[in-house]
């Protein structure tokens, strides 16, 4: 039904956020340069390719820039009309404005200006039309991209929680996951009303929405819909009243889409383009990025760029007429057109826009340098954003600041002091975490060794190996049998006796909550620890049972509990519950526990007696119960 109509797309040139501070003062988000090409170029290519005939570009700021841009560009078969509304400040307002103009006639594609997409929009819209044929109330289809697990990646803040009906992909709940929220409330109704429900945290909103004509009136009727999230929430809550439903659709696995919602996403997008994940919108294949020489390790150099005697390590691109000096190293960076960079400069994870000059011996790390900046001799710039036309004096050292030039002079804002809003995410933090990947690993094992210093090297290695595999097993929900196999093979690898294995496995399980909390970045306190420990023990019950099966093993198990409890404050109060749990699960026998409790070992230091004190109530109960049972036996 929508095939007869002209294919229409609405693009919002601005995204009305400040997450890319300070770039919104310089460009509208649609003109944000990605590898020195405005985002709009990429989008136009996609639009033309998907045969979109009519595009409405809604401009609310930097109108002159946009007008200029649209005038210069030549596009075939796609008509672009500008809708100009100075001072519009939210997505809701913009859509209401478009509604009053009445230019949108049928089904249309709504694209937020900060997105990058390679998919065929026409076929996506057709899929939406098919959904409408089945369900007249299908208002909108969101296009989501499957990211997989986003843990420890740049995208960890970008994924969202999607609850949907499995058979029809009807959206039931949608929210962006914030790192601070660890709990999600699930409505009982979802499970009651639908036979199968899908819960996903691996999807990313691509900022492409396939809309039925009813979307605009909905916005017009509900003045409180300011953002897309408002709209989705509102529609989902009042599904019945509004008689409209939202669906979602997965982006084809070969297609690519990523909205620039933060500097991290910007970094990610650039890297992905350089690694050609976004084919055909990549250097060499895309007409705005021509005449680049593709070299190993995803490095590109424009034919005119001078780069003799320098090292392009990986994932970087060198633009038109740029020149690098001797012995300059570049990795994971973009150097745009007409930049002149001196010798012995080190550029890492940085974005250098056009006409920037960097003198010799500078170090630029994790930074963004807007056009026409000058960085003089021997400066160090780490984690900074330099606005256009900033001149950095020689030998200066800038760390974590935003430098802006104002009429009154140069203003410097500390990143930490920045109170834009909490959406501001700079890509530096993650990067550091990544660089330190191996060092954090080693430091965690150091912590382990501090905690229990006397064990010899191999056993220690074995312990950390076991912790690793258990942690992974717990997170990925692997089968315990496979984990046992894995532990057994590490056992052989480190030549550990069976008793030590038992001891270490128990130890690993007990210390697992600490590692788990550290991985998920939850504060470590006894409550969290205990909660997690309980879950972990339940999960790993088969493993524990596998190792603790004779009396010696029980001894080892108790020894492990004692050692860990004496050094971990979180566990200490919980030890008696733990013993009880093990007792209930038949891991530890009553005799053994009592035997252990009574065995005042000669080296009973303060810690160990502490443990014994902590478990006293349980022992007491155990003894009482035993008396009872012997009594009842006598009866």
């Amino acid at each position, binding site marked *: 039904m929508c095939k007869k109509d002209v294919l229409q797309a609405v693009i919002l040139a601005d995204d009305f956020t400040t997450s890319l501070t300070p770039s919104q003062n310089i460009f509208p988000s649609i003109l944000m340069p990605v590898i020195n090409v405005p985002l709009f170029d990429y989008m136009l290519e996609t639009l033309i390719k998907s045969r979109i005939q009519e595009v409405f570009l809604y401009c609310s700021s930097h109108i002159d820039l946009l007008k200029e841009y649209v005038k210069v560009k030549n596009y075939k078969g796609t008509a672009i009309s500008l809708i100009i509304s100075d001072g519009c400040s939210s997505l809701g307002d913009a859509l209401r404005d478009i509604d009053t103009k009445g230019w949108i006639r049928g089904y249309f594609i709504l694209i937020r200006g900060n997105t990058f997409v390679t998919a065929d929009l026409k076929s996506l819209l057709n899929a939406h039309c098919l959904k409408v044929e089945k369900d007249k109330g299908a208002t909108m289809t969101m296009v989501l991209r499957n990211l997989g697990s986003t843990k420890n990646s740049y995208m960890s803040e970008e994924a969202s929680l999607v609850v949907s009906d499995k058979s029809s992909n009807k959206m039931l709940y949608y929210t962006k996951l914030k790192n601070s929220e660890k709990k999600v409330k699930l409505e009982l109704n979802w499970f009651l009303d639908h036979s199968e429900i899908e819960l996903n945290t691996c999807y990313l909103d691509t900022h492409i929405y396939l809309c039925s004509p009813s979307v605009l009136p909905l916005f017009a009727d509900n003045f409180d819909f300011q953002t897309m999230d408002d709209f989705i929430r509102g529609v989902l809550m009042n599904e019945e009243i509004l008689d409209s439903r939202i669906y979602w659709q997965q982006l084809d696995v070969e297609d690519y889409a990523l909205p620039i919602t933060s500097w991290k996403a910007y970094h990610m997008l650039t890297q992905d383009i350089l690694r050609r994940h976004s084919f055909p919108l990549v250097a060499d294949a895309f007409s705005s990025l021509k005449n680049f020489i593709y070299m190993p390790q995803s490095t590109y150099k424009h034919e005119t760029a001078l780069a003799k005697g320098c090292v392009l390590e990986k994932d970087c691109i060198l633009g038109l007429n740029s020149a690098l000096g001797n012995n300059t190293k570049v990795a994971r960076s973009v150097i745009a057109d007409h930049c002149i960079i001196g010798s012995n400069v080190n550029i890492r994870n940085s974005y250098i826009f056009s006409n920037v000059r960097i003198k010799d011996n500078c170090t630029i790390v994790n930074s963004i340098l807007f056009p026409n900046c000058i960085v003089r001799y021997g400066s160090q710039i780490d984690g900074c954003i330099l606005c256009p036309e900033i001149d950095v004096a020689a030998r200066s050292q800038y760390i974590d600041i935003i430098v802006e030039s104002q009429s009154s002079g140069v203003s410097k804002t500390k990143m930490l002091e920045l109170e834009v809003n909490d959406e501001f995410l700079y890509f530096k933090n993650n990067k550091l975490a990544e660089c330190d990947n191996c060092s954090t690993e080693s430091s965690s094992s150091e912590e382990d060794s501090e905690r229990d210093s006397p064990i010899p090297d191999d056993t220690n290695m074995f312990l950390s190996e076991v912790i690793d595999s258990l942690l992974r097993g717990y997170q*990925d929900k692997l089968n315990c*049998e496979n984990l046992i196999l894995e532990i057994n093979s590490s056992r052989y*690898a480190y030549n550990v006796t069976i008793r030590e294995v038992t001891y270490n496995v128990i130890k690993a399980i007990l210390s697992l909550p600490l590692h788990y909390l550290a991985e998920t970045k939850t504060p470590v306190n006894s409550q969290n620890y205990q909660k997690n420990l309980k879950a972990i023990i339940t999960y790993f019950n088969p493993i524990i049972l596998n190792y603790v099966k004779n009396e010696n093993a029980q001894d080892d198990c108790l020894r492990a509990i004692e050692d860990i409890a004496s050094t971990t404050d979180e566990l200490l109060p919980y030890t008696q519950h733990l013993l009880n749990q093990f007792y209930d699960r038949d891991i530890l026998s009553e005799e053994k526990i009592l035997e252990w409790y009574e065995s005042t070992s000669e080296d009973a230091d303060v810690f160990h007696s502490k443990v014994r004190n902590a478990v006293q109530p349980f022992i007491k109960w155990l003894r009482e119960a035993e008396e009872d049972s012997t009594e009842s036996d006598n009866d």
Partner: protein
Amino acid sequence: MNFPQKTREEIKAEREAKKAAKAAAKATKGKNVSKVASSNNNVKNVSPVINSKISEKSVERDVSKESDNKITNTDIKNKPTAVNCDISEKSTKTDAVTVKDSQPTREVSKENTTQSSNIGTQSCTPEGKSKEKIGEKSKAELRAERRAKQEAQRAAKQQQLLAKDNSKTKEPIKPCVETKSECVVKKDVIKNVIKEDPHQLSLFKHLYHERESSRIAVAPINLNIHPAIIRLGVQYESKVIVGSNARCVALLAAVKQVVKDFEKPAQADFVRGLETSLQQSMVYLHHCRPLAVSQQNAMRHLKWQMTRFSSLSDEKAKNKLQGIIDTYISEQIQLAGKAISIKIREKISNGNVILTYGYSSLIHNILVEAHDAGKQFRVIVVDGRPWLEGKEQLRRLTKHGIECSYILINALSFIMPEVSKVFLGAHAILANGAVMSRAGTAQVALIAKAFNVPVLVVCETHKSSERVQTDSIVYNELGDADELVNHQSNDEVKKSLLSNWRTKKSLNLLNITYDVTPADLVTAVVTELAIVPCTSVPVILRIKPSEI
């Protein structure tokens, strides 16, 4: 707090139940597995994996009483997935969780899995559930069951088809699941023989044939096989345990268990008895998946050792044998790996680009250790369909912080110019210096040679074989041809292209597991003894004591 809230009565009841359970456990623990055991014991006897299947099977049967060939066939296929989640998929797993509203089947089967795992380890009390079941049954029922079981066995001996009929009769618990499953396997084989004939490549006729004969050679009733071996067999078959070393270690661990639990038969000598028992186990394992060279060598070593201590008492022999197994694992596999790792580390210099193919545990250890030793290098992981083992290598190496690139095998000549060394793992090294390894390895060596890149094959000497072979066709292992059918869900068109390939008479799919790299494509073989050219491999074989 959990316990103080309970009333005294509750606690008492609980404790009593537990006591009883423990007593039962103690009683049953000692008992030996035997054919005439009670049905309770019989449950134990059965392999854990098959046990977990029971519920599914019976449920299915309730639905459609006719268990035709197809259902049993799919059952067999389900077997591995029901119990073992595929390790290789770990990495690609998404966070997706599917909540199904009510699935009694799955729950039951899950319960059974846990139950069976307990039984498999023989360490714990029988769970309440199975006890309840036994309790519920009247004596008459038990008798009927026993009769049914005997009938089934007889039927299995006489005719496989009869066994099928038998399976139709509904029983609360399958008394002799094992017999059944063997029958099912056989049926499966027979069916395949009839059906797949046009799809056998004439070049590989001998391999198809060998496969069939090995399957038929397994006696239908094999209650003597230790559960650990049966479990191992299933793990081999479902490719949970892959890789020459892993298979060897797993086998030795299982054999150790067998030795530990072995009871001398009344009339035979200990060594003799154990040997026949192991012989049977090996036949079974061979039927699950053809034995690797490493496994054969390990078993030969054990046998040779066993012939030497005929004078020892049983208990001593047991202990000694277990000790021998441990030594074999640590010396032949671990220490050898370590020695190789140290040797080859000298060959990695800073700034090198190392190319490797697929997944080899040894290569993985070498790279990780070299990285830990502070070597600066980059790794290119080459992968090939349908195994895609390189993904695992890639995942592990990146997790360790090593910089990696990834290509499929077709792009070799694109990447080869930047490579400084090629490291390859091996399945076995043959007496003529040829290297037998995962299919695709020979190609990597070939292209490396064409680009003048040195190729180092790492191989512990316990993988050396006396066999000589010049091509990959004389002896090979045929994989499941269906693996070649594209499994990626993204392309509907391509998927439908091959999904019914068996209906096309003149179309064959061939999936071979190994290939043989000629000695002239390999620069050197790194063994724990020395770095030598391929042609000197026979020399190493002679140096090694003859028992291996």
